[in-house]
């Protein structure tokens, strides 16, 4: 037989449960803009009825101890993967765009025009082999060409050093993130041993893993206790339970390489194993793309130097002596016009063998013609070789730009899916709020009704 106090209990359980539901709704609303927040919901269920004799007595409403968290494991993993590529291409794009600026060709101030000026200088000299003005102009053109070579090379080397600094910073950031993840592992397991759900810690931990995935390629897996383990390439663990393994950087042949420190303190070089993330983007740009540009600049400078010197040695200067080396140096970085020639313009060898002085110009014409000779390996002229290099730089930037754009849309698309599942909709929360508020009001009304009923009963006894 139902009693009035039972009614009071039902009302009380309803008040508590609806209030808790409003509480969670409020939390959802409060976290509408929190990155990585997954919306939560109170799992409400009917109270277990009490059966006495042939009667069933309802006990109202109750809720599960664990609060439901809307979360898609698969989407998170995929998002992590795409985020790794996004990091890689964004880093590469940023670095290559800087390198592109070093080849100031679109503005017409780069190596291409410096070379044209230099070859034209030789032609002008061949028109007037004894002209002091022509000789001085040629030397300035040679010095300008050398300085553009030096500068371009140095700028790209400098960029490689900047990338080293970036790599150092990234490794610090990775170590910080893995430490935080290990700390959160501890918190999650502590909370969840009591049968509760550590939704907030999990959200925070997932967000950190998402950030980490942008920096380096990782695999993550959860064990039965709620610990999240994280490995990087080749199964090298970064986080296991509450332990972490640090990454560190050290100089290796002039560049900062990335090392993984095992439990015994031994450093393992994992630079070439890093396959994605910003770390990969920076390292690949530094070690592959920029090195390639430097090598090609060196090739160009070396071939230019040796072929000009060869022709210049075969010529004769105004004093009738065989030409000295016009250029000195060992590559693009230290190419310069021979100081002796700079000091004495008479030492420019314009005349060819057997020609009279000072009007002989065969050597000058031979050198000027080098511009159009297929001197470079692969049978291209200096200009063609350099133009191809500029084209390569442009294509590299374009590829990185295209890939990072593509990855951005991928990540955004997946983020949208994640938001569909986990995101907070204010409209939905408002509907819930109204719904729970009405239920709360009705429960209060129930208690008032029970109270009035009690009053009636007590009045009878008066």
């Amino acid at each position, binding site marked *: 037989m139902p009693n009035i106090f039972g009614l009071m209990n039902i009302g009380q359980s309803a008040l508590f449960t609806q209030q808790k539901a409003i509480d969670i709704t409020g939390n959802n609303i409060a976290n509408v803009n929190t990155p990585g927040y997954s919306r939560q919901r109170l799992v409400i269920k009917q109270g277990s009825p009490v059966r006495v004799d042939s009667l069933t007595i309802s006990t109202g409403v109750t809720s599960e101890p664990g609060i439901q968290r809307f979360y898609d494991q698969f989407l998170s993993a995929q998002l992590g993967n795409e985020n790794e590529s996004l990091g890689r291409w964004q880093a590469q794009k940023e670095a290559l765009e800087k390198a592109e600026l070093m080849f100031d060709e679109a503005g017409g101030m780069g190596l291409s025009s410096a070379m044209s000026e230099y070859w034209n200088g030789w032609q002008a000299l061949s028109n007037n082999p004894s002209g002091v003005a022509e000789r001085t102009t040629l030397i300035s053109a040679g010095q300008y060409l050398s300085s553009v070579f030096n500068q371009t090379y140095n700028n790209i080397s400098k960029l490689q050093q900047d990338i080293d600094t970036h790599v150092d910073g990234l490794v610090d950031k990775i170590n910080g993130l893995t430490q935080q993840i290990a700390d959160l592992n501890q918190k999650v397991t502590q909370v969840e041993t009591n049968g509760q759900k550590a939704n907030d810690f999990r959200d925070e931990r997932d967000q950190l893993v998402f950030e980490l995935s942008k920096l380096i390629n990782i695999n993550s897996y959860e064990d039965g206790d709620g610990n999240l383990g994280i490995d990087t390439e080749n199964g090298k663990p970064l986080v296991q339970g509450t332990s972490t393994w640090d990454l560190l950087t050290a100089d290796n042949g002039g560049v900062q390489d990335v090392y993984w420190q095992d439990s015994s303190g031994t450093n393992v070089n994992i630079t070439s194993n890093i396959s994605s993330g910003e770390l990969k983007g920076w390292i690949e740009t530094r070690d592959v793309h920029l090195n390639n540009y430097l090598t090609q600049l060196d090739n160009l400078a070396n071939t230019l130097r040796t072929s000009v010197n060869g022709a210049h040695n075969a010529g004769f200067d105004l004093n009738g002596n065989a030409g000295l080396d016009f250029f000195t140096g060992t590559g693009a970085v230290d190419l310069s016009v021979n100081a002796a020639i700079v000091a004495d313009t008479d030492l420019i060898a314009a005349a060819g063998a057997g020609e009279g002085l000072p009007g002989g110009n065969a050597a000058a014409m031979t050198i000027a013609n080098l511009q159009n000779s297929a001197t470079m390996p692969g049978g291209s002229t200096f200009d063609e070789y350099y133009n191809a290099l500029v084209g390569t730089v442009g294509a590299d930037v374009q590829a990185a730009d295209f890939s990072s754009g593509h990855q951005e849309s991928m990540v955004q698309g997946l983020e949208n899916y994640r938001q*569909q599942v986990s995101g907070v909709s*204010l409209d939905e929360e408002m509907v819930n709020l109204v719904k729970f508020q009405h239920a709360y009001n009705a429960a209060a009304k129930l208690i008032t009704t029970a109270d009035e009923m009690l009053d009636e009963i007590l009045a009878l006894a008066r």
Partner: protein
Amino acid sequence: MRVTNKMMADNITAHLFRQSGQMARTQEHIITGKRINRASDDPAGISSVLSYRKTIAGLEQYNDNITKAKLHIDTVDSVLGMVGELLREAKEIAYDTAPDMRAEMAVEVAALREQVLQMANYQLDGKYVFNGDTTDTAPYSAAPWTYGLDTGSKDVTIGENLSVSITADGSAIFGPNGNNVFDILDRLETALNTANAPAIEAEIAELDTAVDRINTVRTQNAGIYKRLEATENHYSYFKVNVEEMLSKTEDADIAEAIIDFQVQKTAYESTLSTSAMVLQKSLIDFLR
């Protein structure tokens, strides 16, 4: 499909960034007037642009070379023209039409020889034009008027691996040592002074040969001059063509860019206005 607030906000910002990025790019085209502002704008295009620029710089230098070569030939031609005139005057004298004036004629021939010597030692821009590559030394001195320094020619580059040679060898122009124009005029002077009629007349043929030699060089030079002019003309057309190709490759079509910009601006503005509407309203506004 659940549409959440963050989704809407993220999508709106992503689209606005994309659209403003496009507008910035189009605007760059309009401001710079160039379609290629960095190598990555068109990696294949930038290679062509550099190659066109190199060609234009090369053509400018070739034209400069040609102008200088033409000046040289012009100068040489007028000098040799004058030498021809002087030699013809000497030939008139060699016909020996007024035997009683031989002594005066001898003086005139000596004067002619000095004039020819001056012409043979002509300097253009401070450089002797008839002494091969030894442009700093006079090819002929006073008697015995021996030319012995240099047989080089004046070579000028007029194109990729193309050059012309202008004769600068004095002995090829004024005759071999021992029988050059000065020797002939000297012999004529002596013959006039000694009233040796057969010797005087003998120099007529020699003078003819000397004039022929000079005319041959002038004809050769004229041929080179024509070639230079033809090349120059060709280059002026060629340069215009290359410049046109360069412009087509690197310059932006401003009209097209402005239309693009208008289209992008309209899209951007509609995104802004619809976003404002979508973001402002929620159920809260209606729960009063």
